C-alpha cells in the first residue's frame, strides 16, 4: 500500500486492474486505491507477471502492506493470460470510434475492405441492419396465438394484462462515494452539537463588484468569510479527538456537486493568502478537476472551514451538516430581489428593492456559543455590504 498523499495512514483496495497471470508493465496501473472519496491509480513498481493478489477488493489495509506479488523473472513477450493468441486485426480510427459508440464487437464483423479490412461502410451497414431488425421485431403476439398468454376475461373485453411494473431498484447498490458521504454526514450529526444561525445580507455591493470583476459571488463571499474568520478564530478550528485546535491558516473547503454521483469538498490551502480573483481561479480549477475525477487525496484533506453554495439552484435556506472534524460551515443561498426597509437620504424609512441573500452558519455548540456565531455573521454581513 503506497503512501497516498501526505497524511493517509490506510487505503481501501477499490479494484484490481490485473489478475494473476497477467503481464504488467513498469508503472502500468495495477489497481485502484480509495482513500476518503478519492480513487487513485496505483502504478506497478516493476514489470513482470502478476503472481498473487494478496489483498482482495474492498479490504482496507495500512500503508506499507503488501498488495500483490509480481514475478519479475517472467519474460515479456509471452502472451498475457488475458491476451488472445490470434494476430490482432487493426481498425481505422473511425471504425474503432463507431464500434465503441455503438458497443459493437469488431471481431464478429466481416470486413469488405482490402484483405477483409473492416471499413466504415461495414459498420454503417451493420447498424442499419440492426435497426431494421429492431423495427421488424414482432410486436407482442396477439392474444389468441399464445397459450401462455393470459386469455381475455371476455372475448370482447378490452382488458389486457398490464405489463409488469418496471423494477426501480438498482442492483449496483450505493456507490462508494455515496456510502462515504452517508457515513461522514451521520457521524457529524452524532458527534457535533449542531446549531444553525441565519442572517440576511444585502448583496447590492457584492453584485456590483462581482460584475466588475466578472466572477460569481462565491469568491467574494469566501474572501469576506476568510477575513471574518481571522477575527472569530474559534470557528476556524477542528476537534482532534477530544482536543479543540484553532488554526491560523484557513484551509477553505468548497463543496462541489458531482450531480448524482454525490459531492466532494476540495480544499484551498492557505486561502488567507489569496485575493478574491485568486480564490475564483482556484475554485474554478478545483471544480473542474473534481468533476473530471482528477483530485488527489491531498486536495481534500486538512480543511478548517467549509462553504457550501446550493443557492445557485434557487433555494433560500438550509441547515448544512458540519464537515467533521471542523466546527463551522457557511451556507450561501439564492440571491433574491426583495422589498426591504432602508434609510432614505433624510433619515426617513423607505421601501427599496434589494438583492437579498440568506447566509446560514451551522456551528458546533461544543466549540463556541451563539453570541460568537451571530457576531461572526454580523461581521461577514458588514464586510459584504461595504465591499468596494
Amino acid at each position, binding site marked *: 500500500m503506497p503512501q497516498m498523499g501526505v497524511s493517509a495512514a490506510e487505503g481501501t483496495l477499490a479494484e484490481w486492474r490485473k489478475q494473476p497471470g497477467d503481464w504488467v508493465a513498469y508503472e502500468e496501473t495495477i489497481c485502484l486505491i480509495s482513500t476518503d472519496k478519492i480513487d487513485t491509480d496505483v502504478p506497478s513498481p516493476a514489470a513482470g507477471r502478476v503472481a498473487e493478489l494478496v489483498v482482495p477488493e474492498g479490504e482496507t489495509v495500512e500503508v506499507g502492506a503488501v498488495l500483490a506479488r509480481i514475478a519479475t523473472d517472467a519474460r515479456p513477450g509471452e502472451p498475457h493470460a488475458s491476451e488472445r493468441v490470434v494476430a490482432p486485426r487493426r481498425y481505422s*480510427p473511425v471504425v474503432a*470510434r463507431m464500434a465503441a459508440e455503438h458497443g459493437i464487437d469488431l471481431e464478429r464483423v466481416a470486413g469488405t475492405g482490402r484483405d477483409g479490412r473492416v471499413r466504415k461502410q461495414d459498420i454503417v451497414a451493420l447498424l442499419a441492419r440492426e435497426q431494421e431488425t429492431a423495427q421488424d421485431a414482432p410486436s407482442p403476439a396477439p392474444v389468441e396465438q399464445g397459450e401462455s398468454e393470459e386469455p381475455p376475461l371476455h372475448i370482447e373485453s378490452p382488458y389486457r394484462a398490464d405489463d409488469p411494473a418496471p423494477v426501480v431498484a438498482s442492483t449496483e447498490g450505493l456507490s462508494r462515494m455515496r456510502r462515504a458521504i452517508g457515513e461522514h454526514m451521520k457521524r457529524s450529526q452524532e458527534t457535533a452539537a449542531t446549531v444553525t444561525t441565519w442572517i440576511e445580507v444585502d448583496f447590492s455591493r457584492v453584485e456590483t463588484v462581482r460584475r466588475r470583476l466578472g466572477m460569481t459571488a462565491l469568491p467574494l463571499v469566501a474572501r469576506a468569510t476568510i477575513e471574518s474568520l481571522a477575527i472569530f478564530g474559534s470557528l476556524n478550528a477542528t476537534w482532534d479527538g477530544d482536543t479543540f485546535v484553532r488554526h491560523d491558516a484557513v484551509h477553505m473547503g468548497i463543496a462541489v456537486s458531482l450531480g448524482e454521483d454525490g459531492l466532494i469538498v476540495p480544499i484551498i490551502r492557505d486561502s488567507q493568502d489569496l485575493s478574491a480573483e485568486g480564490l475564483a481561479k482556484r475554485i474554478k480549477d478545483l471544480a473542474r478537476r473534481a468533476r473530471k475525477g482528477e483530485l488527489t487525496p491531498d486536495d481534500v484533506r486538512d480543511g478548517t472551514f467549509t462553504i457550501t453554495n446550493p443557492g445557485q439552484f434557487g433555494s433560500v435556506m438550509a441547515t448544512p451538516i458540519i464537515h467533521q472534524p471542523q466546527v463551522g460551515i457557511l451556507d450561501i443561498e439564492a440571491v433574491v430581489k426583495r422589498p426591504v426597509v432602508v434609510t432614505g437620504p433624510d433619515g426617513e424609512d423607505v421601501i427599496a428593492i434589494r438583492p437579498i441573500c440568506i447566509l446560514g452558519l451551522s456551528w458546533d455548540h461544543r466549540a463556541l456559543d451563539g453570541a460568537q456565531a451571530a457576531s461572526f455573521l454580523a461581521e461577514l454581513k458588514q464586510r459584504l455590504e461595504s465591499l468596494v
Partner: protein
Amino acid sequence: MATMTYLQAISDGLRTEMRADERVFVMGEDIGVFGGAFKVTDGFLDEFGPTRVMDTPLAESGIVGTAVGAAVAGLRPVCEMQFADFVSCGFDQLVNVAGKLYYRQGLPVNVTVRLPSGGGFGGGPFHSQNPEAWFMHAPGLKVVAPSTPEDAKGLLIASIRDRNPVLYMEHKHLYRRIKGEVPEGAYETPFRARVAREGTDLTVLAYGAMVHVALEATEDLDGASVEVVDLRSLKPLDEEAILASVRKTSKALVVDEANRTCAAGAEVAALIAERAFEDLDGPVRRVATPDVPIPFSPPLEAAVLPSVERVREAARELLEY
C-alpha cells in the same frame, strides 16, 4: 450573366475594379502596349491611360517593390508576373518586405500579384511551375487559386480589396479552355473553400486546374459518391470546410499540381491527420507532381503532372480500402 473564359473573367474583374476604384492600377512586363503576354490587359492602356497601366522593365523585384511603396502611400496596385516562375526574382520584396510591413510598422500592404502558373501545355521548366507553397510558408501573405471563371473574377476583386498582400494564382492551362457563367458587375468571392461536387464515400481536395482533373477522374467511379472540394484559398486554408467534408466521408485524397514536398496539399494532408484522425477510415493519400522540374517534352510532362488516370486510380484504391 455572360459566358466567359477564365481569362476573360480575370480581365473583366480587373477592369471592373479599375473602373470602380481610382486607386487600382496595373504594372508589369508588356502589359500596356502589348496588352500582356496572355492579353489579360488588352485594351487597358487605351481605357485607363499610361498612369494606371504601366509597362515596367524586366525586373520583378522592382515591380513588387514599387507596388509595396505605392500601397503604403494608399494605392492598390495589381502586379502581373509574366509567368509565375519569374516571381522568384521578386521573392525578397514579397517575403521580407510586403509580408512583414504590417507586423513591423502597422502598415497594410494592399498589393495584389497575379501569377500565371501551372503546366500542361509544353511550357517547360521555366514557364510551368506552381510556386504557391513558397508563399504559403511566409507569414503575412495570402494565396488564392481560382478554378472557375466566376471565382476568377470574384477572387481577383476580393484580392484587390483585401488589405494584405495577396498572391493570385491564375492557371494558364485554364485560360481559354474553361468557360462559365460570370455575374456582371463587382462581387467578391470569399477566401473559403467550395464544394464542387457533393459526395459521401471519398473527399478529393484540389485547387486550380486540379479541380477539373479531380471532377473528371471521379465522375464515374463504379457508382461511388465522391465529394470534390475546391480549396480556392490556400492561405488561409478553409480548415473547417476541409474537416467537415473529411469527417463526412472518412477518406481523403489530396490532388496537387505542385511538386509534392511541402506543397499546399501536404499542408491539407497534415491538417486532416491532425484534426480529423478519429474520423479517418483510410490513409490520407496525395497525388502530386514528383520533385522534379516540369519537363519540356510533352510525353514526359504528361507523365509527371497528376493526370485523370492517376487520380482515378488513387481514388479507386482509397474507395476499396
